[in-house]
């Protein structure tokens, strides 16, 4: 693998940047692999990367029906935080946060991780009580967090309307300084390049059409480019997981919904942190390009259409203008949707299934991007050892029968 550095940049300038090596190969599928990962989004690629790098499993294929990171990895609002309420969730997201902090160096790829802090606003007394409880829980778990009053919020975001005149006045916020944003495409590309360099075959435009199962054991997958064998298959297909499960004769506690986001025309720097509000239902940050990146709620109905409804855009922009009257005349540039697989307890599923050797990593719902490195790491450990990693174990699909749910709705709500 050609390493990236300032020196390489200068050297390639001499040849007008025309001779850079391709970031990954486009191999022909082999007949068999040790492990097949279905789904070439961030989580799948991270799984493959850590399998090869940390766990010595290099005979791995990532099978993607479209192109790399063309699904939710490229459609989210890039927010990274770990201020979750419950111990199990906090441990998993904080594991991810720690990997984020060294990720660009680890991958030799600039994922533009920017720890600009995240504010979760409180607009009611109950919001503030929940915020205090969550921040206290975070600190007990070793996760940074502070409770701010309205004045503290105003100091961080001068353009936020913290006056008493607001329809839902800001009473305070939780503040996680280590949280922030990252460049979503770069995360997929960085993991793909790193995995490819370690020998992982990334098979794009290859669709899994079925699973080869005999006597309750997985033996491989059927694809539009022929059958491929593997005795370990990890399915990391986000919004399409319900469809994949049905191909294996399984049912999941998931419903797939459209979640949308939008960006404005580029502006000069005006917002240098991330502001989220459950109560008025919107979240916003400003990208390095200058556009405002705005997130919305999910559409309430099931859908695979990768577009969102107009009413949701309208509600979201009402919330943004309510918080930031200064943005009332900003024009929006683009709007899109991704398909999120939501779980009843708003926590993911990292689990074995009743088919031996077939694993699922799904159900990340509206908040998967922030978990990309941690999810990939613990899932890779589980696939390599055949035993769920201790951080992944509480997220077994069995919890929907045992009742040991990890109910993160209170802590996370809409705002992921």
């Amino acid at each position, binding site marked *: 693998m050609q390493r990236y550095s300032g020196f390489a940049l200068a050297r390639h300038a001499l040849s007008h940047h025309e001779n850079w090596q391709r970031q990954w190969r486009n191999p022909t599928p082999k007949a068999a692999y040790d492990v097949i990962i279905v789904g070439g989004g961030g989580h799948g690629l991270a799984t493959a990367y850590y399998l090869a790098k940390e766990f010595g499993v290099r005979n791995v294929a990532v099978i993607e029906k479209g192109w790399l990171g063309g699904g939710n990895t490229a459609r989210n609002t890039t927010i990274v935080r770990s201020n979750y309420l419950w111990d199990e969730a906090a441990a998993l997201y904080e594991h991810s946060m720690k990997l984020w902090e060294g990720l660009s160096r680890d991958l030799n790829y600039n994922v533009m991780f920017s720890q600009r802090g995240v504010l979760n606003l409180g607009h009611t007394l109950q919001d503030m009580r929940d915020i205090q409880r969550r921040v206290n829980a975070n600190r007990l778990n070793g996760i940074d967090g502070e409770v701010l009053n309205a004045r503290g919020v105003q100091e961080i975001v001068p353009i936020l309307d913290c006056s008493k005149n607001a329809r839902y006045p800001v009473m305070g916020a939780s503040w996680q300084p280590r949280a922030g944003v990252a460049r979503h495409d770069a995360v997929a590309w960085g993991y793909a390049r790193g995995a490819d360099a370690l020998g992982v075959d990334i098979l794009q435009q290859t669709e899994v059409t079925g699973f080869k199962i005999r006597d309750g054991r997985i033996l491989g997958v059927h694809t539009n480019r022929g059958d491929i064998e593997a005795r370990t298959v990890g399915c990391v297909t986000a919004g399409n997981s319900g*469809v994949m499960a049905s191909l294996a004769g399984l*049912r999941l506690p*998931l419903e797939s919904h459209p979640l949308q986001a939008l960006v404005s025309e580029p502006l000069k720097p005006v917002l240098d942190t991330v502001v989220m509000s459950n109560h008025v239902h919107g979240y916003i940050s400003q990208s390095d390009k200058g556009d405002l990146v705005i997130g919305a709620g999910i559409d309430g*109905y099931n*859908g695979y259409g990768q577009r969102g409804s107009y009413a949701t855009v309208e509600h979201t922009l009402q919330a943004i203008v309510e918080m930031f009257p200064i943005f009332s005349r900003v024009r929006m540039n683009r709007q899109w949707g991704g398909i999120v697989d939501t779980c009843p307890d708003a926590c993911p599923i990292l689990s074995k299934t009743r088919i031996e050797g077939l694993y699922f990593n799904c159900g990340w719902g509206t908040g998967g991007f922030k978990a990309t490195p941690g999810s990939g790491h613990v899932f890779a450990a589980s696939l390599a050892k055949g035993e769920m990693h201790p951080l992944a174990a509480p997220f077994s699909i069995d919890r*929907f029968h045992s009742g040991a749910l990890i109910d993160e709705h209170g802590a996370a709500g809409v705002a992921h």
Partner: protein
Amino acid sequence: MFHIHCPYCDEWREEEEFHPRGQAHIARPEDPAGCSDEQWGDYLFFRDNPRGIHHELWVHAVGCRKFFNVTRHTQSYEILETYRIGERPRFTRDNPDGVVASAPESLDDSDIATAAQEVRA
């Protein structure tokens, strides 16, 4: 934006008047206390999540406030039909063109109707 026909009001109204309430035709177990954890968990949490024809429960929230069923395609989003609680869908995964073979018969949806009444109350 959907334009939805409420089978009770018998009017086409905008999506904003309605709320989706998840998969339709989920029967509450007759004897909850007699269920295994497996059966009860399946009833509470496990859902069909098809890429295609799906039967859903919707409520006309700011209209008549009645629950009804919608058959909708989850990829094209086309609404194929709306029908009252207790009625059977014409369009199904096995019959996507809605070919009518015989007279529609009543489906036992009393539990959904009861749930709807409870929410209304």
